[in-house]
């Protein structure tokens, strides 16, 4: 978010070599990927913190250690995944030839991210009567997220696919004992995990599309200048 804002600020403010750099396709791809990676890592850290930190301690002995409470490999994985997804979405849009038209603006993206964090928040903080209820609620919220901010078939398909894959991967990881959930209710994991993955995919796709919009703009302008 902050990074994304930074991009928009920099992108519009600097000119000259920066523009040429940004219009260069590869560089632009790298920049976008990096940005998405950072966003992914940041969200992973924060949301994982939300998950891990259930019991309230009066004095956290070490703030830094609690921020990085998850295993070292989790944030990079999430970052890479989000970068991939965020780059893949505009790509798919371009190949399918149906550009995403719905609410292409940063405020909408922010709203999307906020709802995503809210879903995570709900999964971690709200006490549900049973797990089925929790999972159903979160699923409804995720689909609502898609409907509100995406509404593209490709986005939905991609979200479902990635969610399934990621769930499978998590199952395998837990099965092999890399980590575990405190109260698994869906084989080895929590049943709301696919919903979270789905919402995350939609969110990162939204950010990725918005970032790709800048490239389009710059490329257009470049053509213009030529």
């Amino acid at each position, binding site marked *: 978010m902050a990074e994304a804002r930074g991009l928009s600020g920099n992108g519009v403010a600097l000119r000259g070599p920066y523009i040429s750099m940004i219009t260069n396709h590869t560089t632009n791809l790298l920049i976008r990927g990096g940005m998405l990676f950072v966003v992914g890592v940041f969200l992973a850290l924060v949301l994982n913190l939300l998950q891990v930190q259930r019991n309230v301690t*009066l004095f956290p002995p070490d703030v830094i250690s609690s921020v990085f409470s998850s295993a070292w490999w989790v944030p990079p994985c999430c970052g890479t995944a989000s970068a991939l997804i965020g780059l893949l979405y505009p790509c798919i849009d371009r190949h399918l030839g149906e550009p995403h038209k719905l609410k292409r603006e940063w405020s909408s993206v922010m*709203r999307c991210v906020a709802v995503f964090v809210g879903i995570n928040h709900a999964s971690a903080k709200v006490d549900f009567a049973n797990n089925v209820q929790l999972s159903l609620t979160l699923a409804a919220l995720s689909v609502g997220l898609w409907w509100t901010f995406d509404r593209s078939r490709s986005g939905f398909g991609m979200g479902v696919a990635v969610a399934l894959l990621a769930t499978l991967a998590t199952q395998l990881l837990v099965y092999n004992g890399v980590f575990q959930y405190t109260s698994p209710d869906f084989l080895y994991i929590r049943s709301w995990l696919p919903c979270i993955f789905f919402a995350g995919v939609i969110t990162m796709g939204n950010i990725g599309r918005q970032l790709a919009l800048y490239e389009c703009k710059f490329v257009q302008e470049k053509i213009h200048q030529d």
Partner: protein
Amino acid sequence: MTVRERLRQNISAAFYRHGLLCASYPVPIILFTSASILTCCYPLLKLPLPGTGPVEFTTGVRDYSVPSHGTQGDLGERPDWYRGPPVAYIQQVLVKAAVSPWDSSLVPVDVFRSPLGRVFSLLEEIRDHVYTDRSLESLCLQVTDLLPGLRRMQSLLPEHGCLLVSPGNYWQNRRDMFDSDPDILKTVHQHEPKGLHTSATLKDLLFGVPGKSTGVSLYSKKRVVTYTITIALSSYDARFVASLRARLKQLHPSTNCSLREDHMVHVHFKEEIGIAELIPLVTTYIILFAYIYFSTRKIDMVKSKWGLALAAVVTVLSSLLMSVGLCSLFGLTPTLNGGEIFPYLVVVIGLENVLVLTKSVVSTPVDLEVKLRIAQGLSSESWSIMKNMATELVIILIGYFTLVPAIQEFCLFAVVGLVSDFFLQMFFFTTVLSIDIRRMELADLNRRLPAEAGMPPPKPGPLRPREAPPPSRPSPHTITLQAPAFRNLRLPKRLRVVYFLARTRLAQRIIMVGTVIWIGILVYTDPAGLRTYLAAQVSEQSPLGEAGLPPHLGVAPVFPGGDPTSTLNVLPAPEPTPLPENQSQGHGEARSGPAPLTSPQITWGSEDEEVWRRLSFRYWPSLFSYYNITLAKRYISILPVIPVTLHLSPQEAIETRHPQDTQHAPRTSAKTTELQADLTLYKVAALGLFAGVLLVLLLFCLYRVLCPRNYGQNGVQHGRRRRGDLPCDEYGYSPPVSEISPLLLRGHSMDIECLANDGMLLASCCLAGQIRVWDAQTGDCLTVIPNNGLRRSSSSGCWEHRDGWDPSSPARNASTPIMDNEHPLRRRTTPVRPALFGDQPDLTPLIDTNFGEVPPSQMMPGCGFDFGELVERAYKEHEASPPLPFPPSPPAARQRRRSLGDQSVAPPEQVLLAPWDWDSSVWSMELRGNLIAAGRSSGKLELWDAVEGSLRCCNEDGSSGITALAFLNNRIVAARLNGSLDFFTVDIHKPLGLLQYRGPPGRASLPPSPCYSSEDVISCQLTRSVQCAHQKPITVLRAAAGRVVTGSQDHTVRVYRLEDSCCLFTLQGHAGGITAIYIDQTMVLASGGQDGAICLWDVLTGSRVSHVYGHRGDVTSLVCTTSCVLSSGLDDLICIWDRSTGIKLYSIQQEVGCGASLGVISESLLVTGGQGCVSFWDLNYGDLLQTVYLGQSGEGQPVRQLLVLDNAAIVCDFGSELSLVYVPSVLEKLD
């Protein structure tokens, strides 16, 4: 479907009425809304203040019993946390000790060494106290290991035993270690944290009183040492505590002590939020603010952007407050953490409606009344607003049926929030918006009025007596340009950085963020001040239990007790001099009598009753947290303090001295300790001072170095140097003179209407219809094509055949006198050609007349005369023999003949059919090569020879007035008033083909394309006519790079290909008629509309590249350079935009009425017109370079048109005169 339609209609009608209501009565509605907001927020007053400060509750000691867990009704004001046993009972023994009397033989160290030494005996006393069969060991709170992270405190805090804290812990409760400690202060201070840390430190923990009041200092004025021994008891045994109290009081009586001992304070600690807990919260808030930022950034085209953004945020926030207030009014107290759900609520409610409303209202036609605009805007968005609201309500309803309490609560809040938000949007925001729009219109009105006043009075009619030429003026006043050297002093790169910073407001943002973070850190690390204040407020409200303490006496000191380690520690070093109490007391009293001035006085006041209050509120939580005991959501009970007074004799003090105490240079060590005490304060002050000075210096340097010399001259009128000012900078350096002298081109009798140039020539047309052609280099008038020339010439009888055909002609002839040439013009005297053919009229002598005088317009009231028209009419009548509408592309030869006018072919009867259109005036003009293309209001297109002043051809296929012309290569595009677009092709036939008709060719062939030889036969044929190019009149027409772009009042821009006149794109995006278009060879297309918006388009794809709102009112002209877009508007503002990003770089306020005059010379030089002057600006920096006054008169007429010629000259119309300013010096400076 019908139901839906009807619903939709009803909703939109309701919103329309509501909009009218809101805009009609803004003030009452705002008052009503504010009142309802306040009413709904009123229940919020009852809610407790947020915060994590401890809460207190006081009970009496006498009838205290451990509160039970159950909820047995509400017992008076008993808080709900007061249930079950506390974590611990805290018994504090407050010791005040002093060496008295003080005498001069004592060193400063004696102030605290022996008083501190007495702590060990007291500890022993307390540890060994036994009442009946209970010892401290059995009652006290047993603690285990310290937390693993606190290894360095291991030697200082008790482990595996009673939690009993005293200053003795510094020496591990061993008297021998204390005695052998050479420097007590060092021991005490070595554990203090170095940095700025104001919460509970180790010194506070062990001494139990705030660091300053301990008196353990070499400079203590009072020479009284204060400390506490803190005992944590796990269970409360009233009799044991009372016996301990009695025992200690008996041993060390405090004579003047009247502390209340009947209150027991229970302190409840709330859940403490750690940083880790805050991170997700902070993240959500960051997202929230980003959302608000991105949303409000979209508010545009209003009077005060900030005001509306504020109103939007106020709407959302107060709707949330209202919802909380309403919910708590109906007994729905929030159990969720309000701060956590707040961002989500804002996101759910959203700012979208507000933005949509603003946008829709702003995009309504500007010329409507405010009321109607609001109503229209509201009603056009009503359906989507209602739809969204219904969707949200349904979603929330679904959420409500999840039957999860937390979600239900959230949903309930959200529903109330949504409804109240809708209410506020409809009443509050709409009204604010209407006020804003009204303000904007008022401002526009104020702005426009002087503009109109400044305009020259409208033409009274053609009767304006302008026969006498204006008196010839002396050479115009000029102002010299600053020297190039001076301008080159500037370093562009440095300034670019500064401009970048200024544009992005980076510095302010960084400072702002830094300040916020800093304040946040301060509040986080030192919340004590705020929170203890809150706590004090709360405790004042809590009731005071009144109870007395029955004296439980019965003192029996029994030796062993305490945990084994401490016993072992104490045993080897028993207290050496256990003073009998009466002795010490008597001693103290005896000594304090004679020397009252120097002796320290031990006083007990009410502030000693609850010593712990003066400590950080974190004191207890941190003490317990060391043993991994949390106090969050639990409470401790603090028993009344036991006062102990110790008076020590000087002998004792001297005896307990350490050998090093006296050797110690007390002064130096004193200095350091004293310094240390207040070091943090001084550090902060010094740092602040230093930073402040540095900041001021930095800003000063920045200003001196970077501020442009002509700072502040950019903007408004004061920026222009007044005439007569010496052109020198503030250093008194007057640059070498390089003069720019404008060349005045006089001759027009009325204000100049059209200007056209092709680099070499310049054509101008005045309101009277006279066209003059000037040499752009020298300013000589080459040709004059008078409006009424034809009439005159026809009256002179040269056009015989015409006389014969037209019966009305002789009548007119009589009314046109022959005027003499009065102007000292270079006359264009074309030799009258002999008529070559008897059957064809030679038109040239008729047109190319030898007169240059002002047309006697007063002779012909009510009509402006049109020169070519008569000819064309005549031709037309001749040609009219074929049925009227011509085929789109007639054969060229035929067309040529027709346009040449084969009068012989035409039957003369046709003349009478068409009425003469005398008052058609030139509406548009273009100049290419030697040809002037003039479009007339009658719809006629004429081609004139610029050099000879002869009509070369004319086309009157259309009847609607030609509003705009474009002449490119050999094509002419004419836009007409009825929205149609005609494409003409100009064909040149070399004189070779004419040789047989005419005599010897005058000039064989001039250089080809742009120049048309006077001998060529030029025909102009309509190749294609697009009948309905636009729905409404075409206002602008531009052609470049093989494209023709038209803009119309129907809000669209169309792009045509010039070759085949095929419409490529219809560009939509403006919310008003198009008023300005720019297109150049690089295919940059910019358009500006009446809505003040400027759009940049991609001509290749037809997509909109950027869209900015720049002007209040019409955009009057647009110019693009490679990096910028320059626009001027009716608001007399020239805005310079970055072309790639659409960011406004800066704007220049023009003088009233001169807004449209603007031109760019050589990429970095901007020329603007003013009141009788033109100004040159550096485009990159927005600096005024120079102002050139065009005339002598002070007021001057506004320069309304400005044309940049190829040879770095500019031409501007200046009333009825033209001014040619040649600016070579400016160019050479720029290169």
